[in-house]
């Protein structure tokens, strides 16, 4: 019984990781050779395709664009989701409940339905085809606010009050007292935001057109267009998109998992 279970689990595991292995395998084949299925077990490994996409073509530029946008959006979310979450958790002001319910409301809006108005707004603000178009709409997200607010709700207020009695200003309390306490929640938030942004396709695709601000997923999706598909370059570019994710996954698996299950399973 135990053996049967293991065989089944391994069988599923092979199905789940084979496609990614195949991507890496194709990207490490010698340039120009036609791919055949038996290449999967071929012992030949060369980095010539990787060298090629890094030194020529636009892949490296797309990679850099994805990095710039991903890092900026992540930093923005850490700062803003923290500020807003703190405000919703600790302050009382007119309309606060309405604003907080708006977070939950937006969580349920299917964002893809809004591509037309978002495109037009970005266009009319003069931001179309710029980094700003890829960054500004995504600097604060409802899930992040929710996550931070829930976390701060569980923290005791004693330290903030002590700081306030000592005459510390609100900004100082925000960054020096509360922020350090929120590190675990902010780490979860940062990883989630970065991965989502790094993999995102639809919005970067509709909000830009030129190669100078194109992100990696968009570059990969539009790479096909030519006559015959150049699988080796395409798979090497894909590997470039996957490697950072794998590294993050390796080091922060705990945060990724708790980010996914945090909002989800709550009685």
């Amino acid at each position, binding site marked *: 019984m135990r053996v049967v279970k293991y065989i089944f689990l391994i069988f599923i595991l092979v199905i789940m990781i084979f496609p*990614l292995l195949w991507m890496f395998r194709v990207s490490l084949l010698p340039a120009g050779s036609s791919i055949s299925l038996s290449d999967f077990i071929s012992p030949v490994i060369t980095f010539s395709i990787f060298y090629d996409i890094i030194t020529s073509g636009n892949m490296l530029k797309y990679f850099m664009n994805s990095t710039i946008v991903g890092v900026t959006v992540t930093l923005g979310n850490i700062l803003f989701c923290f500020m807003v979450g703190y405000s919703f958790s600790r*302050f009382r002001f007119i309309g606060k409940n309405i604003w907080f319910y708006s977070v939950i409301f937006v969580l349920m809006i*299917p964002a893809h339905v809004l591509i037309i108005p978002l495109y037009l707004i970005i266009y009319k603000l003069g931001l179309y085809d710029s980094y700003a178009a890829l960054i500004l709409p995504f600097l604060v997200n409802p899930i992040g606010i929710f996550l931070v607010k829930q976390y701060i709700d569980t923290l005791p207020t004693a330290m903030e009050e002590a700081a306030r009695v000592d005459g510390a200003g609100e900004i100082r309390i925000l960054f020096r007292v509360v922020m350090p306490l929120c590190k675990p929640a902010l780490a979860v938030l940062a990883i989630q935001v970065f991965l989502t942004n790094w993999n995102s396709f639809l919005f970067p695709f*509709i909000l830009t057109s030129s190669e100078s601000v194109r992100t990696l*997923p968009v570059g*990969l999706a539009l790479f096909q267009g030519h006559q015959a598909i150049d699988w080796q370059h395409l798979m090497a570019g894909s590997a470039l998109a996957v490697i950072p994710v794998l590294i993050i996954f390796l080091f922060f698996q705990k945060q990724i998992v708790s980010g996914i299950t945090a909002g989800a*399973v709550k009685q």
Partner: protein
Amino acid sequence: MKSRRFTGWLFATPWIVTLIVFWLFPLLYSLYLGFTDYKLLNSSYSWIGFENYVALLSDHDFLLSLKNTLIFVIGTIPVTTIIALLLALLIDKKFPGRTIFRSGYFMPSITSMVVIALIFTNLYSRGGYIYLLAKIIGLSPPDNGFLLSKKTALFSVMAMDVWMSVGYYMLLFLAGLKSIPRELFEAAEVAGAGLWRKFMSITLPLLKPVILFIIVINTIKSFQVFVEIFVMTRGRYGSSTAVYFIYETGLNRFEFGYASASAYILFVIIALFSIIQFGLLRQEGFR
């Protein structure tokens, strides 16, 4: 106290601005655009009432894309949910190698959808691994590969989607399983209950809120399927979906009014589904 009230506002402004500029305004703006004949940027346009909606109801492409979206939702969600639950049950208890299986199953769901879609385009193509496998087990795959045939294109994308997302929902099920008190199982064992009996009368009822939650988020997600369709078929071979239709009419043909109207129809359909499902969730006492 007054200054604290002001500080609260101040800290909340990033959200208030984002909400108004990038959520509420677009929602209202596209509702308005749906009643106009707005085409091409910087052209003038006028109010045409329900004309777009009337035209959509007899637009063959739109109806096909809606039908495909429904097939996608109804076809993938039960399969994904059942496989995810099965995997979660299999690796719920601690055993050597458990983390490896968990990570491996989960890995596809944090990989870029574009990358996954590209890899599967290769696997599904004539002479690709899946094509070959289908031949070996005696199926006759379409001559040009799975994605270039009306019969198989949409279903191939759906199968890939199930493959990609089971790991994600497995994680949610694992979290749900963890919250079931072990004593219940022990008590059932003392009473002589077998595996199946324990599953039917403890696991399944107590997982009901998680199952419903998974169905809700997967429904909202699946109704918006676009990336995989764009990368793998460009909506050809009868595989267009609702968001693909919105993209195609709005941002390829620049018929903003018409596309906005179609987006609102999809929006209302998703809202109806969500309301029904949230009603069910509430019945389960899930907040």
